[in-house]
Structures are given as C-alpha cells and as structure tokens.
C-alpha cells in the first residue's frame, strides 16, 4: 500500500522524510514511553519505601495503645488518634454509603434516560471533583458555626459528603451492567420493583457495589483537609464524637510541623499506619474485582 511514486502527500499521511529518520523518531518515542513508566513506578517505590522505613522504626505496642507523649518524653502513642479515625470513618460510611447507593439506584433504575437523571448523573461527576477542603469548609459553615464547637460528627459529615458521589457513581455503573432480562423475568413473576432491585439487581452486582463502598472508604480514611476545621484534633481518648476528636491524619499534620523529634517520629509511624490501611483496602478491591472477572 505504499504511495505510488510521484504522488503528492495530502492529509495526514506519511511525510516524505527519510526512512531512517522516521525509525529513529519512533524508537526515541518508544524509549520515552518506557522512561515515563519507570518514572511513575520509581516514584511510587520511592514514596512507599520511605514511609515503610521511617514509619517502621516508630511502631511499637505502646504506639497503638497509649496517648501521645509530651515533647521530648519517651514512649507514648497514638492510640486515641487511631480509634478516632476508625470512629469518624465508620460514621462517614454509615451516612455516605446508604445515600450514595440510593442515588446510584435512582440513576440506574429510575432516572436512566430522563432529563433529571441526566442532570443528577452529571452533578455526581462534578461533585466527585470538589476539593476535599471545600467539603470541610462547607460542613464548618453548616454545622460547626451553628453548634458552636468542632466535633467528630462534623468530621464524619464532611467525609460522607466526599463518599456519597463515589458510591453513587460506582453503584450506578455496576447496576447498569446487570442485564435487563433478569429484571424483566423477575417482574414477570409478579415481584414488585423494589424487591427486584434489592434481591435481584443488588445481588447480581454485589461485587461491584462492595468495590465502590471500599473505594470510597479508602478515599476518605486518608483525608486530612476535611477534618482540619470539623473534627479538629484532641490529645485525649475519644469518648463520643460530640466534641473535637483525635484522628491520625490531622495528628500527622500537627506533629510533622512541630519542631520536636519524637513527634515527627510519631508522624512517620502514623503515616505508615494510614498508608497500610488505605493500600490494603485498595488491593482488596482489586482482588474482589479480579475474582469476579
């Protein structure tokens, strides 16, 4: 299919550059692609190895069970912050997941093809891109100002705000993959629509739904910015979520910015704990998805 001799090249087609030059460019670009991949993977390895090496030296039994030590004092731990992070994330999951799943149900089952459905679908995508610090600011203005003090509940609300669109997106996408025949045959048997959705569609898409929830949990449990002006932080054990609540990520921020060596060490330990938690969940979702595929 070579161009006949003397034919002028119009349009996109191959320019009349010498063959060796074109081959050289091709090779250079392929090499550049390889280098780009190496940069990406190299940075990943660099960041993870630093976190593991520096974090591991801070870990001990008391790191998980004790309250923070004063500057310069040996021992101490971040047990309160770990418990707080778990509580806030659990609260966010309880709020954000049902709302996200129901919004996803609407998009996949009721609103598909309607004008409102299209609008909500678009807004879910936009909401996923709202910066997490804006979510914190929103909940601050909404809840902290009116109540008068920072609270773990406000932190959970801010995280739930971030979870909801992620869960809605994956739920809608995963439910859309369920073949219509399943729905139709269940409806033909006389099952009401809501039971078809809950017992047929949810069950068929359960791996995907679980993935969406886990992804959302992974996304928010490492978040710091939304907690800065909602949950704040605390040096004490969390008794309830009604007041300022200790959490790992804001602790990392405060400790890293402090001039004390033992606090900075604790910040690395906390970084390792958070990274391990988030990576475990991310890898778990991949495992679930692969087993399904």
């Amino acid at each position: 299919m070579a161009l006949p001799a003397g034919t002028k090249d119009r349009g996109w087609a191959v320019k009349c550059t010498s063959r060796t030059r074109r081959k050289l460019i091709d090779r250079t670009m392929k090499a550049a692609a390889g280098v780009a991949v190496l940069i990406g993977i190299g940075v990943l390895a660099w960041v993870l190895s630093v976190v593991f090496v520096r974090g591991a030296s801070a870990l001990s039994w008391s790191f998980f069970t004790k309250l923070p030590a004063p500057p310069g004092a040996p021992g101490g731990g971040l047990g309160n912050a770990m418990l707080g992070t778990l509580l806030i994330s659990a609260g966010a999951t309880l709020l954000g997941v049902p709302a996200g799943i129901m919004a996803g149900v609407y998009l996949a089952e009721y609103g598909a093809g309607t004008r409102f459905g299209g609008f909500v679908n678009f807004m879910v995508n936009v909401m996923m891109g709202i910066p997490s610090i804006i979510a914190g600011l929103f909940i601050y203005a909404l809840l902290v100002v009116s109540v008068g003090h920072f609270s773990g509940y406000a932190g959970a609300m801010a995280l739930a705000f971030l979870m909801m669109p992620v869960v809605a997106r994956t739920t809608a996408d995963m439910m859309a993959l369920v073949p219509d025949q399943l729905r139709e045959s269940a409806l033909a048997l006389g099952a009401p629509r809501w039971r078809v959705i809950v017992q047929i569609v949810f069950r068929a898409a359960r791996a995907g739904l679980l993935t969406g929830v886990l992804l959302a949990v992974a996304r928010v449990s490492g978040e710091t910015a939304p907690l800065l002006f909602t949950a704040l932080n605390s040096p004490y054990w969390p008794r309830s979520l009604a007041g300022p609540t200790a959490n790992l990520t804001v602790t990392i921020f405060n400790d890293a910015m402090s001039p004390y060596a033992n606090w900075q060490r604790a910040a690395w330990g906390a970084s390792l704990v958070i990274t391990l938690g988030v990576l475990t969940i991310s890898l778990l979702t991949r495992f679930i998805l692969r087993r399904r595929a």
Partner: protein
Amino acid sequence: MPFGRSKRASMGLPLSKTGVRRGDALFHGAAVAAAALVPVLMAGLFVELAYGSRLSLEKFGFGFLVSAAWNPVTGNYGAASSIYGSLVSTAMALIIAIPLSLFIALFLVELAPPRLARPVSGAIELLAAIPSIIYGMWGLFVLAPFLADHVEPALQAAFGHIPVIRALFAGPPMGIGMLPAGLILALMVLPFTTALMRDVLQLVPPVLKEAAAGMGSTTWEVFRKVMIPYGRRGLIGAGFLGLSRAIGETMAVTFVIGNSHSISASLLASGNTIASTLANEFTEASDPLYLSALIELGLVLLVMTFLFQVAGHLWLSRLGRKTGGGQ
C-alpha cells in the same frame, strides 16, 4: 440468577396490592430523595460559602480578587497571591503530568503486552491511593532536601546567566516553594490523567490504526497522527479534570510551598495557594472578617473547580461515555 433460600419470599408474592404499591412508592421516593440530594448539596455549597463570606464580600467587593494584601492586623485581605500560587502550581503540574501520562498511555495501549500492561497500570493507579498527607510528609522530609542539595543548584548553574529565564530560579535553594509544589501535584494528578487518557485511547477503532500501519506508519506515527487526533476531545477533557484536581489539592502543597503571601517570579521562592492558605490559617483566624475572607477564598476555589469540572465532563461526555474524576 438463583433466588436464594426461599423462592416464595424472594419473588415477593404480594400479600395485597396496596402493600406492594406502598413498598414501591417508599423505595422510589428514597431513591429520588437521595438523587435530589446531590444537586441540593452542590447548590448548598455555593450558598453556604457565599453566606459565610458576606462580610468580606461587602467590604472588599471585586477588589478582593486582585489585591495582594493579606494583613490580619489591619484587617486588609486580598486573594491575588493565593490565586496566583494556585494557578502557577497547577500549570506546572499539568506541564509535567500531561506529556508524562500521554507517554504512559502510549505504553499501556500500544507497546506493552497485556501481561505487562495490567500490573503497570495497577502500579500507576496506586499512586492515586496514597493519601495527600503522605505526599506531604515525603515532600517535606525527603523531596525538599533532595531538591535543595542537588536539583536546584544545578538549575541555577544551568540557567543562572540566561536573562529572563534567570528570574525563574532566583533566590536561595531551600527545596521549599513553587517547584516542589508543582512536582508533587504532577505526581498526584498523574494517575488520574493517565487512567483517563488510557481509556480514551483504547476507544480508537482498531481499523483506523491498522489502516495507518498498513500505509507504512511507524507506531509513533500511528499514535501521533491517528490516535491523538481521534481522541482529542477526550484528552482535553482529561486535562481539565486533572487541572481541577490539582488546583484544589491541599495537604501535600501545604507541606512544601512555604505558605507566604507573596507573589514571586522565582519557582524557588515560597508562596501559597488558596487551599494551603485555608489549611494553614483557618483555625487561627480569630476575628469575623479574617474568617470571612478565608471562606471567600474557598468560594473562589469552588467556582474555579466547578467550572473546570463542568468543562472537563462536557468534553468527555461528547465521547458518549461515562467517566468519573474519581478513582
């Protein structure tokens, strides 16, 4: 699809017609309510932030956007340095991340055998799983000293005597400032833009690529002259989504940018972004006007990201597919 343990119950044989209708209505209502919550929350964002910033809006008006003042003592606030920092750090991030992700996408879609493409793709996606604050820790304690000792002096030696460009690298090499902020943002945006670009490029019909290859094109020529033009819309959409992600990124930037309200041409000088100013000063803001000015900064950021998100998704949706900005 099996119905599970009890067929009868799972099939939901109706007890009465009204019971069925009520159940359906309730469930439908809950779904509609949850769906409506999304636009309501989005509208609420704008309303709450506008309301929270009313003091500052009244006092400074449009001048807030162009004033570089930031003085809590005299109560004079302007967003110029924060906006400047957000734009410059984001621009740097995209200048680095977009070519890099295009090349990685080229590798994933065209060069790598499936057995290799999958783990490489997974590793790049893992970059997105690392929390922002971890990038901050790495940036402050590892990348900044590395830049200060090795990279920044080299940049100064290379460009220090070229007029104009020299100004970009003026000042002492501290490893803190616009340069590390832009670099870290590039790394954080990379997994998103790569995944989006990979998906867009995978949509190019094989017939087109084969036709070009059959004409004697090299792999690069097929990529450059067939695949990129075909996927142009989607690629631009991916760029917008990367842009909106970078501009609102908070913690990693706060760690390395230096947090000073100043506008400097030098990439080695410290600066700030809207998000870093919020993270740094919000809990210290004592008087109502200070707080109000910070909330107005948030409003500015919200408007910018909203516009970029809408633009990005519009470009992508023309491709007729659903694409999220999330993981």
